[in-house]
């Protein structure tokens, strides 16, 4: 990427950062969204969050891939990408299982949108990052461990 394009994109990043700010917990979702799923987003554990989303016992799926670092470079901004290869994917939710409120975001995909989201999440400690995909009215899930460490002492 050339330097000019980089600067233009950086300058234009103001609008794009809203979603990230929500995901990182900087903005309360109430500020960004008129109607939000209070029961799911304020749930204190994964079970309650899923219940709030109307999901129960999602099936493990190998068609969901989660790309995230094995060890986070900075727990405050952990890059996470979720790709769903499941036909007819209509939503992708991300949960950081040990966060005080685990549900990070629930992305609704409409009109045949590709099952792919990329964002940055905040994690307080080592935990499974879980994706929950809804497709054709059914729920599927996959998880990957992301380690959050104190650092130092290497090599």
């Amino acid at each position, binding site marked *: *990427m050339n330097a000019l394009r*980089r600067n233009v*994109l*950086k300058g234009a990043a103001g609008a794009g950062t809203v979603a990230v700010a929500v995901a990182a917990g900087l903005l309360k979702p109430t500020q960004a969204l008129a109607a939000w799923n209070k029961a799911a987003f304020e749930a204190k554990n994964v079970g309650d969050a899923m219940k709030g989303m109307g999901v129960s016992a999602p099936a493990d799926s190998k068609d969901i891939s989660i*790309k995230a*670092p*094995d*060890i*986070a*470079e*900075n727990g405050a901004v952990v*890059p996470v990408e979720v790709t769903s290869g499941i036909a007819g994917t209509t939503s992708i939710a991300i949960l950081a299982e040990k966060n005080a409120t685990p549900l990070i975001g629930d992305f609704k995909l409409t009109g045949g949108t590709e099952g792919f989201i990329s964002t940055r999440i905040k994690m307080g400690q*080592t935990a499974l990052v879980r994706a929950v995909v809804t497709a054709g009215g059914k729920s599927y899930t996959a998880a990957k*461990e992301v*380690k959050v*460490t*104190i*650092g*130092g*002492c*290497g*090599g």
Partner: protein
Amino acid sequence: MHMNRREFLQLLAVAAASGMALDSKSALAGKAPANFYDVPKHGNVSFLHFTDCHAQLLPVWFREPNVNLGVGDAVGKVPHIVGEQLLKKYGIKPGSAEAHAFTYLDFTEAARVYGKVGGFAHLKTLVDKMRAQRPGALLLDGGDTWQGSATSLWTNAQDMVDACIKLGVNIMTPHWESTFGAARVLEIVNKDFKNANVDFVAQNIVTNDFGDQVFKPYTIKEQNGIKIAVIGQAFPYTPIANPRWMVPDWSFGIRDDGMQKWVNDARANGAQVVVVLSHNGMDVDLKMASRVTGIDAIFGGHTHDGVPQPVQVKNAKGITLVTNAGSNSKFLGVMDFDVKNGRVASYKYRLLPVFSNLLPADKDMEAFIKQVRAPFESKLNETLAVTDDLLYRRGNFNGTWDQVIVDALMEVKGADAAFSPGFRWGTTLLPGDPITMERLMDQTAITYPQTTLTEMTGATIKTIMEDVCDNLFNADPYYQQGGDMVRVGGIEYTVAPNKKIGERISNMMLKGKPVEANKTYKVAGWAPVGEGVSGEPVWDVVAAYLRDKKTIKGVKLNTPKIVGIGKNNPGIADYDGSYS
């Protein structure tokens, strides 16, 4: 690609013949034979590889570990084999020059017989000798080259940059280099290295914002008309194990997917040989070799394992060789490939110990080193104390040198306990050697040397120890960072490497009393990874302690009791403590 059984046995015979046959472990063979460095060329593509020299320009002593435990699938496997088990595994004669190079056995006596190792003037002679038979052979520098000595710190890495250019390095990948800061790395890469045609490669360093490559992911070279790709793999956890703020705009990580992409790209561009110059650490390299296809060899470093022969790793499309070439300029890896019909048909590998007594110093390099040191000689040569003990660092849990450091931190700072990072670099001193400022800097020369004194609860101390222990003993290599366990002064403990985080550390005792979770303790430490920490540099603290003591003797090594690893684990021997 494979080495057949007969070729392998022939190679072992060569290795064994270079040390005279001996029955007794304690008997030393004495001088290595004159043909020690005769390595006949094989095939048509050659690589020379050194790694983790840690800025040691002059010959040094370096003791290999007697504790290097494997966990998960790595228990009892290379590189987690030490001492006599290692000799047995590779058919190396006890008492021979190789036995001294690859193990800690009879270290002091053997060191006096075989002399110092490494040194860039001697390494240069060996590189030139190998290259004379192998015109066009590529010299690969695996990183951790610019850091580890007083002169590299005081010249802002310039001494090592110049020395590597003189040595004839062709390609490099980084780790500790980044602790000189992103701007300095870029300055060297874009000026010194560019002018000298040295390629700096790292497929796994990308920008934080858009994920663009910061450096070239790989470079293509040609030998005897054969196209060769060398892909760089920097230490994946640089911004975690070292200060994040020094490389704020770069993201690292293992990035298997990127590696596969660049391997495929290199092959598509006509490369008949694809190798990786890696600073992953050997366990990570072994896992990567099983997952990424199309790599002929990974030349590895970081974990400082002197591994005599490559490990052959099977993956979905073939076999990848994984090597690790030790540290401190102690070894030069020589890999010869015979490429036929567009692919590697066979290989021969030697990891040659660099014995400075057997290799005359290269005059030009010797003069250069002398000139670099001249402004600092008096400071380097100040004798702070004399040691009656063998002082070394390397080993999973503690070393006598680190014990001196934590003892100094506790005494000078008035602390109950002390932490010293589990670094794997740092040279060795023999009983009777003077401890000069230079030797102290070998253990401490980093760009974030501040010492700290912190009030911590017992619970916090345990959390830190568990966290570091998991970086060493997580069963999945991709969650390991490659250092050793944090060195602990003042607190005795029991460790269970095969357990999970939170369950490995127990029986923490301070001065005969259990460490209490809610009680506060004064803990000294150094090398903070956070920004803006102030404190006296660690070398000043330890120098003050050494000047006061004058003689170091009877160092009492604080080693944990190890449980759950078995009595016959080949990753441990002659342990100064109990294990089961």
